[in-house]
């Protein structure tokens, strides 16, 4: 197991390193100079040069890269130009919002999606199943920015039930969370449904029935337990993309999370924050993947290595 875990960590680090390199090069490849962005229309070449020197951007690229990598090891991404604080501090101020939003969305998706999927599978082919299928298809394919806008239009602007955005009150998380949860919820419904149907077709289900177990136990224990394996795999991956994908929802609902920070920082060419955000997002993504892998081992004894 340790060897396996080590290998897994190794490849995860490789992915982080790759992403870090790409974001480093990308930020420097795109037009737009942080100094110019800050100084605005009236910037003079002297002012720009002075600022770049202050920020160490006049150093040769390899030096900057090496600097970036060595400091990345201790999660030091340097000073944010735009915010005047360490980039990591900016990230750690916004990340909790994104994680909070993602978790609420995740819980919502799970709590609604799982039972709905099981129900749909048991009602296979009936009207309820078809309705749920259509709903989940819609949830999966509708653009979340539009769904968000429509929710605001309906619940906020017309009915005045929920706030339209921001993180100012506790119920403010609901609309963005629902919007964010919808695609994941749909994925869960579909996965649970097809997973359960597939699991129910396996011979061991016949065995369970031949043992004379009640149908509730056959489905609830033997069926569901096996179906968890594919569900956890995909849901884990989706959770990773949930964080990254929160950008749009955060934009629509002015949610002060990492996604918005990333967008704003890209716009301001705030290299340090962009690099910090991307590295943290990717780090999160690969961590979740590792957790999923480990969870896989918990759920599926065939994956466990003896001894």
């Amino acid at each position: 197991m340790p060897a396996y875990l080590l290998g897994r960590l190794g490849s995860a680090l490789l992915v982080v390193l790759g992403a870090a390199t790409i974001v480093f090069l990308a930020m420097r490849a795109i037009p737009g100079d942080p100094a110019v962005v800050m100084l605005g229309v009236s910037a003079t070449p002297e002012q720009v040069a002075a600022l770049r020197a202050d920020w160490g951007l006049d150093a040769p690229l390899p030096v900057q890269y090496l600097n970036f990598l060595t400091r990345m090891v201790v999660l030091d991404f340097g000073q944010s130009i735009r915010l005047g604080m360490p980039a990591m501090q900016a990230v750690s101020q916004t990340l909790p919002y994104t994680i909070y939003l993602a978790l609420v969305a995740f819980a919502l998706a799970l709590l609604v999606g799982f039972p709905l999927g099981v129900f749909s599978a048991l009602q296979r082919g009936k009207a309820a199943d078809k309705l749920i299928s259509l709903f989940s298809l819609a949830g999966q394919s509708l653009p979340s920015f539009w769904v968000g806008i429509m929710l605001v239009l309906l619940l906020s602007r017309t009915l005045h039930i929920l706030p339209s955005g921001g993180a100012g009150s506790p119920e403010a998380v609901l609309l963005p969370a629902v919007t964010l949860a919808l695609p994941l919820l749909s994925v869960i419904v579909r996965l649970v449904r097809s997973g359960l149907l597939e699991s129910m077709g396996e011979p061991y289900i016949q065995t369970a029935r031949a043992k004379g177990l009640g149908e509730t136990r056959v489905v609830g224990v033997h069926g569901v337990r096996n179906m968890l394996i594919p569900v956890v795999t995909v849901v884990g991956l989706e959770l990773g993309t949930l964080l990254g994908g929160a950008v749009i929802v955060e934009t629509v609902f002015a949610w002060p999370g990492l996604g918005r920070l990333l967008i704003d920082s890209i716009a301001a060419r705030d290299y340090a924050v962009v690099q910090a955000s991307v590295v943290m997002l990717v780090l999160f993504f690969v961590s979740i993947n590792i957790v999923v892998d480990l969870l896989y081992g918990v759920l599926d004894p065939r994956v466990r290595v003896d001894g």
Partner: protein
Amino acid sequence: MADLSATTTLASGRALPLGIVLPAIVVGFYVLAAVIGPILLGFDPVATSLADRLKPPMTALANGSLSLLGTDAVGRDLLAQMLAGARISLAVGAATLVLASLIGVALGVVAGYWGGAVDTVVMRIADIQLGFPSILLAVLVAAVIGPSLTNVILVLAVTRWVVFARVARAQTLTIKSRTFVDASRTLGATDAHIIINCILPALVAPILVVATVQFGLVIVAEASLSFLGLGLPVGIPTWGGTISAGRSYLANAWWISTMPGIALSILVICVGILGDTLRDRLDPNLVTR
């Protein structure tokens, strides 16, 4: 094996289920609207008419025509704009899928067939791609080459190839180990012969399914890019762009965001049903996300 009988069912033209016919008709309608709509109801991005701005649906305009779905913030007819947008959306979707599937299938087959270092490199790049925020990628490409139709297609293709590569690779791995490939080998067949005769034909069905499922996602992704202001240049009408532009007018002109959103939703749902039905019939075990 299930895929085979399904192929024949499709090929032999036995009664197709509603799950295919209905959405196919809707999608066909969109294609038709996209092709001939702009001819019937031309959209000129430059033809603004300030007196007609923000008019609700079913309003008679200054020039005497009737605006079925209302007008936007500079007085252009929303329906005409949406028809022109349909053309762009469908074109972007199709072009992206062609590009992404070509890249993805090529890399996936190579990685799956030869394995080893090539496989490791391709799959590692895929991992990075998956973890990397696509927004940043979009900004990057848009900024480097400037916003254009090609760039949007490029960005979307770059974010989509992984799905195709994964499916192609998995399918290649499965097919590669199938006995009929061994049979070809014992005939003395070369790798190229095997890839062309055994692997690629087996990829058609799953890739088709993935492409159908992805089609809706790509259209939505294009709209999302436009929504974030990273999409097509101003002057090229897109659904996402219109929805985004209408966001500031939710208070006084709800139709600007709502109408193209409904059009987009109906399309992607129908494409989704189509993809689902195809998947059920062609390759039930395919995971396409």
